[in-house]
Every structure is written in C-alpha cells, then in structure tokens.
C-alpha cells in the first residue's frame, strides 16, 4: 500500500491457546534483555546532544519560547518596525517604538506574553532584521503567571538555540 499500512494476518484456524500463550511468553521474555529506550529526563535532555547520543534530539524546526538576538554591542537587533505585533495571530507581542538622537528606531518596550503565544513562528519569519526568533527549547516552568510575560531584557538574555523554521535537509522547505 502506498502509505505503508501494516496488514495483519489474522489467524483463521483454531489454534491451541496454550501453545499460542507460550509463544507470547517467549516474546516477552526476549524483550527483557533488549536495549532500554527510556530517556532519563533530568540527566538526559533532548536539547542536549551530549547525553543519549543525540538519540532524542529535537528537530531544528522546533518552535519554543522566544529569543531576541543582539548585535556586537549587546543591544537588541530589533528596529521596532512593528511587523511582528502586526502579524501575530495571538496578539501577544507588545511593542512601543522609540527613536534615539541619530534617528535610529529601537523598542522602548518589547514584551511577549508566552501564555497567549501559539508558537506559529510568524514573528521570526516576518522579522527583517532577524532579531526575534522562536527557540529550540521546552523547559519553561515558573512560579507565577506574571513571569510568563517576557520583557526585552529577558528575551535577549536567552541562550538556547533558535529555530530554523524549516528542515535544512528538505530543499522544498525553504
């Protein structure tokens, strides 16, 4: 079949239950000595290539919590163009633009409410400066709801890898 459906051969003879049970027991016994597939989570992480031999590594297309990239001086790359709050389908980005003496625009306030975010990745796609990114990251626990509104400082301080949004091995993706 085209989509690879596995068709099971149903037994239509009347077979001995006892012998069938013994066969099943041989199978389960064999499994006792096979390789374990468990990931020991806090020690081994799927974002950590060193543990587990990359067996559980996340796909580079993974869209997790955001990260703001910075330039060499440590300032955010964001030019407060307003494209990301415009495209955001969940309306979770708050941007107040500012302008310095030389006429360069920069964000006065840049906040992402990660609770409202649907992790579509449109903000990264639309960003002309490649400033805002969704990250390959999934550990987001906090003690209060308020902590889930990430401000500019926090977004810039994130260090996790950023999403590629498409599969680099698939030429059609780009």
């Amino acid at each position, binding site marked *: 079949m085209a989509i690879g459906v596995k068709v099971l051969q149903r037994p239509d003879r009347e077979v*001995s239950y006892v012998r069938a049970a013994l066969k099943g027991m041989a199978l389960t016994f064999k499994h006792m000595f096979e*390789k374990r597939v468990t990931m020991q989570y806090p020690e081994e992480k799927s974002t950590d290539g060193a543990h587990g031999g990359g067996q559980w590594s996340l796909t580079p297309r993974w869209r997790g919590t955001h990260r703001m990239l910075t330039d060499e001086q440590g300032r955010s790359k964001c030019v407060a163009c307003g494209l990301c709050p415009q495209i955001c389908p969940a309306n979770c980005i708050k941007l107040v633009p500012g302008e310095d003496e030389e006429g360069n625009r920069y964000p006065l306030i840049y906040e992402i409410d990660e609770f409202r975010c649907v992790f579509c990745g449109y903000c990264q796609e639309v960003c002309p400066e490649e400033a805002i990114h969704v990250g390959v990251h999934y550990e987001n626990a906090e003690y209060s709801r308020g902590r889930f509104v990430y401000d500019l400082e926090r977004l810039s301080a994130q260090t996790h890898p950023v999403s590629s949004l498409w599969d680099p091995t698939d030429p059609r993706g780009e």
Partner: protein
Amino acid sequence: MTPEMKGFLLLSVIKMIVVFTVVMVGVALLTLMERKVSAWMQNRIGPNRVGPGGLLQPAADGLKNILKEETFPSAANPVLFVVAPALAFIPALLLSGVIPFAAPLPLDFDVTLPVLGRIAHHGPMPMVVADVPIGFLFVIAISSLGVYGIALAGWSSNSKYSLLGGLRAAAQLISYEVALGLSLIPILLLTGDVSFSRIIAVQQTGLWLVFPLAISFFVFLVSGFAETNRLPFDLPEAESELVAGYHSEYSAMKFSFFFIAEYANIVTVAAMVSTLFFGGWDIPFVAVGTAKPWAILTLTPGPIATLLTGLGFFAKVMFWIFFVMWIRWTLPRFRYDQLMALGWKFFTPITLGYIMLVCVVLYAGEALGLGRTLSLHLVLTGVSAVCAVALFFAVDRGLIVSGSAARRARRVGRQSSQRLTASP
C-alpha cells in the same frame, strides 16, 4: 508448663515473627519486582529514583499510602467497608504459616533463661510455623475465605463498578475453587496424604509430582491464577472495564491492604505450586538424611542442610512468582464467558477424567506390584505425557479459548471454515 512445652512455644513465636516479617517485606518488594519486570518486558527501566536501583520505592509508596487521605463514600456501608480490606488481607497472610520452607532442623537444647525459666527442645524441628496434618485442605479452605473480603468490598462500596467487580470475583473464585480442589485429588491418590511434609517426603523418594501429575499441575496453575485475581483472570479488577473493580472506592491504606492481599496470595500460590509439584524444599539429586534414587550428594540434617534447602525453596518460589508476573505482562484479559467456559466446561471435566485415569493407573500398578513410589511415578509420567500431547496438540483447538476469527468461522459453518483454512 513443661520445659518442652515452653521450648515449643518459644520456637513457634520466633518462627511466626520470622515468617511474617519475610512475607510482609517480601510482598512490599514484590510490588517493586512487578514494576521492574513489567518495565523490562516493555524495554523500559522501571522505578530507579528512590534508593539504589529503586529499592526503597516500596517504602516510599507505603509512606505515601499511610499519609494519604482516607476517602469514605457517603453511601457506603460503614462497618463492612472498613472490615472488607482486613477480610481480604488476613486469610492471605494466614496461609504463609503452613507451608514448610526448609528441611527439618535437628535441635537439642536444655537451658535455663533468666525470665522464662527452663526451656528444652529435643528432636528435629519442622521448618514451618504450623505443621498442620490437614495440609493443603487448610490452604484451600482458608484461601477461599479471601473472596468474602473482595465481594464485601464490592457490595459495601455502594458503587456500580465495585458491585460488578465483587460479583465477578465471587462467581470466578467459586468456579475455579472446584477445578482447584479437583486438581489436587490425584496428589492425594498418589501420596495417600494431605500434609505438606508427607507430600514432600514422597517427592524426595520418587519424582517431583509435576512429572507424574502433569495435567493436575496445569489445571492447578491456571486455577491458581484465577484465585489470585491476576491477569488473564483479573476480571474483578478489570481496569479498562470497571475503573478499578471492587476497590474503586478505596483509597490510602485500605486500598493498600487489597494490594498486600493480592501479592500475599501470589506468594501462597507460588509456594503451593513449588511444594505440591516441585518437591518443596527438595533439591534435585541431593538427599537430606534419607535415601534417594540418583542422589549424587547426601547431606546430614543440620543447619547447612536447612539453609541449603531453604534457599532451594526460595529459588523455586521466586521462579513461580516471576512466572505469575511474566504471564500478567504477556496475556490479555479473558472475556467473562470465556472465563466461565474455561472453568466449568473444560477444567472440571478434564480433572474428573484425569482423576479416573490416575485411579486406573494406580489400580493397575498395584495389581502388577509396582510399589508406590519411583516405578509408579515413572509409569504415571508416561501416561501424563500422552495426555498432555493429546490435550495441547489434538484436543485444544479453540477449546480452551478461541479467537474471534475462529468463532466467526464456526458460526458461518463448517464448509466456509474449511475455505478459510485453505486460504494462505
């Protein structure tokens, strides 16, 4: 009170404490073993966070269950709801007292202790808490009491799932009690006794009874599964159908008591199978005191012999406990009608027929002057082997439990069934 009486009482109390402690700790560790075995069979690791290799997991579970809130359904029967876990728990633990776990230990002492006075003991001390002369009859009688706990738990909870679980438990245990009892009659015929010590002695001079009485062993093992409410016979619990069956409404330590009872029953069934069919504490080719055919080593009764035979018994019991878990993680649950059909329509006639067969062989053996042990055992082994082949290769085609495809074929008719068989 004579010094001998005091010595007997003191030793009995020591044995009670030891056996009770071993069973309770063992039951706790069995919950861990169950989880480990299931994990290994599913290519997982199993609990490994509490203590080295997860060894303290049962202690953590126990502590949690003691500290948890006890829920009490408002519509439940207040007395029976509390009594039911104890009723399930007590018979399960009582049984550990009557099974001999090692060779008798010769013990001779006559001492005067400060508080207790003069204490004496002479002759071999049986390594069993109570060497009851009624042996396995006691086990059958007490183990069937466990169903009261389960049925009452189901009824007193006043919940539909619990009630269904309790009803199923009652029907199932009563059905399989019949097959269980009948499967032990060939042992009685062959050994002429019901006491465990006698049965072990017969197995030492002859063969382990699993060989001469193979069909009995099979029926006893399967009925034993049904008695412990384990898969493939866990219909009283049946998570996927009845939430948690008879203990749906129980929480905290009361729930734990049902669990302890279940595992204690597993230990009992494993110990019964080991004692009745696998020689008890008997080690193959090793004679303890008495003469034995094909013995390559003879141990004199003493602490070493007792220790070694105890280890032998422990190994056998552990194997059968593992076997119970192995089955649980291999086979799916029976449907209710399959369960009843298996008990009444298959096991009951099979065991009755087998009793007749064993009687005939015993009668013929007596007429031919075969004696009552080794040669008779060998003849019975041959007969049982023929029965087993006939049963599992010729007769057992959808007779024990049949698949849905096979049943449909039977419904559609013989002709189309042949057509189905012919297709590759």
